[in-house]
């Protein structure tokens, strides 16, 4: 090569070397183009060994050439060669996201998924906002037959970048993956808005697919919401959505607030406000009365500027007062319709991300885009709080590490007195984190401990440390030992009887987090910051811990699970099942569903999988219709025992004909399995049938992956098989043939 250099002696040595390097680089490019990879590689390696490479300009050109060669090799499907080439590079080239991504892709191509995953995981950890790396890691997991791991990668990508580009890439990946079983769980969204809001679709689509739900969308078009809601024959009614997103922007709804506010007379202004809201109220009410959908409407947001400027708050006709008025009306509309309408607190979301950040004046002026693409991830995640709660995809239990998670330091090494917990920083950060966790406990989230420690050291802190906020009574399950955290978590899941996808695992140690992520991908493992002052923010940002409404059961749930543990101890210390059940002193009460009990019954209908004979899901609206109709009954069963009120734990839906009752739904919560409450429940129903002169009762069993526990239920009660209907096995029994089980240990509770 050297002989093609100019022989001009006036050039300095350095310049000469530079020219020589450029020339070689050109040659290399040429060789790659011609497909002579080995030649190109040899030259590149020779150049890399050369000292000239210290020049930044040449270095950057060389990086381009190196990666160009690797990319070309990958495109030519020469994966093994690409791996060998990339691995032989010097360290300089390895501190680079492109290096990780290319090496990962080469391993992927060569079928070596194990190495691909390991190199890409390292890359994603180092370059947290690199979309290409995450997408390659997704591919590696997908090839490896690990769809849950793959999806978790995309979840992390969207959370750590918040970027629309990341959402689009992730969506393409998830749609193109090999294993797609989201088809079973669908949800239908209708988008109604008074501004250009259709772009929300891809964000919601991805967020739904991340939790294995396949969404369908109906977009009504800009400003069509009144017509669509008022016309029973509109596309909206035809689509029969599960969820209506009604996005109303203050500017399009009440444009006078922005510039004309100072000119309008008081009477006219308030008349306008009343009239405008009345119109909206009528449309929403009409739609709510004629559909089963849940309507999510956003709160009216305050504009960033007022025509009254600094005097706005003092004015009788202030922007603030008008917006408040609209929001009060919205709240009473929402109350009027029970749980059918939910208010999305967009004001809070937008103030969190910043209203200026969320605005795009160019696109607003051009196309009435009130919310910029960059704010969409935040808005979509907020909607998902409701979607997850509606589809019962929310998480129910937080499993916590102790050292450096609930307090600073390591109790086994630093000692009880020296751990960091109290009013002094950094101890105050841990106190605050514990306060947040306690607030979750109070609204029904279950807490548990999974810690590697000497039991005595750690439990002493929980019991006796003066600054602990959380005490033993707040934890439904405590695992403090030296076993693997995976085993402990599995035991916790077993003991409190929840599926792994109900858990969040919080640990300051990245290795433990990785272990749980690898072994138990159903568990949500948020990335924790090194600094404990950031802990509360991590949990606050999760949109997985919400319930649609706080039922009394939810508020009690944390306590109920405590009762569950005490009941377990009792189970171990007593002898026969009957004796155990007797000591529980259960009091049961059966009732017909009403508006107070429907929310909890809806929850049970939609999330009970094990003791559920037909696993039919109904919305609250459908259940209300069933409860009100004379041709059907919706029964609930409540129970109390010595440890406390367990609440509503059983549901039967009964469809009635003259001589025959058909049990359409029969389910019991997993909290009370093995307590013979189902016997009590069935006795009661058959008793009612007898009273009503019914001759036969029919039951049905539809097999699912999770309900094998009840496959012989009707057989066991003396029902005879009576054929099949689609997926269902039918059973029937003559009422006079039924033998009631007399349940001495269950008392009938008259409430």
């Amino acid at each position, binding site marked *: 090569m050297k002989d093609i250099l100019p022989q001009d002696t006036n050039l300095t040595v350095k310049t000469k070397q530079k020219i020589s390097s450029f020339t070689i680089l050109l040659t290399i490019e040429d060789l790659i183009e011609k497909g002579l990879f080995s030649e190109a590689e040899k030259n590149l390696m020779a150049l890399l060994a050369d000292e000239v490479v210290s020049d930044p300009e040449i270095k950057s050109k060389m990086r381009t050439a190196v990666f160009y060669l690797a990319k070309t090799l990958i495109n030519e499907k020469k994966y093994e060669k690409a791996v060998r080439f990339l691995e032989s590079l010097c360290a300089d080239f390895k501190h680079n996201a492109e290096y990780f991504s290319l090496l990962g892709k080469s391993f992927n191509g060569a079928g070596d998924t194990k190495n691909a995953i390991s190199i890409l995981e390292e890359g994603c950890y180092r370059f947290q906002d690199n979309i290409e790396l995450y997408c390659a890691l997704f591919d590696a997991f997908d090839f490896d037959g690990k769809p849950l791991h793959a999806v978790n990668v995309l979840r992390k990508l969207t959370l750590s970048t918040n970027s629309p580009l990341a959402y*689009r890439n992730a969506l393409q990946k998830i749609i193109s993956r090999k294993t797609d079983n989201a088809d079973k769980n669908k949800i239908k969204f209708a988008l109604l808005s008074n501004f250009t809001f259709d772009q929300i679709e891809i964000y919601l689509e991805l967020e739904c697919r991340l939790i294995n739900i396949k969404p369908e969308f109906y977009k009504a078009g800009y400003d069509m919401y009144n017509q669509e809601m008022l016309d029973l024959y509109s596309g909206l009614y035809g689509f029969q959505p599960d969820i209506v997103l009604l996005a109303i922007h203050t500017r399009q709804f009440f444009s006078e607030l922005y510039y004309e506010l100072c000119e309008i007379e008081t009477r006219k202004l308030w008349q306008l406000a009343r009239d405008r809201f009345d119109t909206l109220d009528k449309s929403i009410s009409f739609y709510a009365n004629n559909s089963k959908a849940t309507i999510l409407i956003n709160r009216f947001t305050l504009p960033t500027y007022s025509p009254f400027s600094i005097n706005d708050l003092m004015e009788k006709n202030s922007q603030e007062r008008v917006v408040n008025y609209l929001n009060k009306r919205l709240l009473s509309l929402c109350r009027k319709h029970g749980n059918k309408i939910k208010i999305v607190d967009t004001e809070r979301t937008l103030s969190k991300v910043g209203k200026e950040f969320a605005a795009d004046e*160019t*696109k607003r002026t*051009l196309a009435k885009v009130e919310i910029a693409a960059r704010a969409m991830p935040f808005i979509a995640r907020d909607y998902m709080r409701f979607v997850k709660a509606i589809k019962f995809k929310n998480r129910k239990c937080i499993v916590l590490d102790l050292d450096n998670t609930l307090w600073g330091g390591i109790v086994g090494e630093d000692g009880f007195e020296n751990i960091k917990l109290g009013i002094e920083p950094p101890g105050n950060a841990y106190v605050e984190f514990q306060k947040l966790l306690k607030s979750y406990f109070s609204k029904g989230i279950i807490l548990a401990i999974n810690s590697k420690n000497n039991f005595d050291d750690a439990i002493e802190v929980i019991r006796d440390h003066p600054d602990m906020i959380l005490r033993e009574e707040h934890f439904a399950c405590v695992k403090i030992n030296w076993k693997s955290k995976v085993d402990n978590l599995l035991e916790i899941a077993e003991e409190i009887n929840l599926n792994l996808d109900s858990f969040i695992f919080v640990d300051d140690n990245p290795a433990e987090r990785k272990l749980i992520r690898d072994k138990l991908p159903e568990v949500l493992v948020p990335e924790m910051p090194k600094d404990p002052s950031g802990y509360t923010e991590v949990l606050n940002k999760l949109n997985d811990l919400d319930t649609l409404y706080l039922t009394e059961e939810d508020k009690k749930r944390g306590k109920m699970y405590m009762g569950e543990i005490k009941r377990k101890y009792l189970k171990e210390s007593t002898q026969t099942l009957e004796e155990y059940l007797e000591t529980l002193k259960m009091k049961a009460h059966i009732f017909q569903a009403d508006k107070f009990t429907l929310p909890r019954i809806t929850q049970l209908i939609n999330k009970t999988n094990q003791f559920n004979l037909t696993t039919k899901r109904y919305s609250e609206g459908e259940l209300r219709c069933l409860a009100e109709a004379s041709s059907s009954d919706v029964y609930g069963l409540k129970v109390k025992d010595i440890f406390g009120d367990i609440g509503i734990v059983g549901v039967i839906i009964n469809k009635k004909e003259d001589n025959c009752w058909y049990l359409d739904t029969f389910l019991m919560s997993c909290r009370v399995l093995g307590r013979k409450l189902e016997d009590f429940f069935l006795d009661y129903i058959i008793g009612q049938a007898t009273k009503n002169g019914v001759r036969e009762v029919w039951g049905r069993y539809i097999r699912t992956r999770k309900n094998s526990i009840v496959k012989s239920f009707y057989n066991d009660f003396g029902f005879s098989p009576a054929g099949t209907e689609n997926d269902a096995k039918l059973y029937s029994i003559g009422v006079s043939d039924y033998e009631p089980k007399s349940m001495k240990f269950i008392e009938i509770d008259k409430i």
Partner: protein
Amino acid sequence: MTEKIIDLFSSVLDVKKEKITVETSMDDLPEWDSLAHISLVSAIEEEFKVSMSMDEITSMLSIKSAIEIISELSNN
């Protein structure tokens, strides 16, 4: 860059790459409507780290004009 832009149009509009060339204009693709136009602009702005004015947005009516506008913006 042409390839990157065609990729981006294909992904945002959900149209096969083969259907898009430098000569393709808004009238050729039914998927490229005014709403999709806004999504395209947002995607371009993020991908190429540029910010487009109203004039630029309204005059970007073909792949060719998109390439011109983006090159101009990235060079400044």
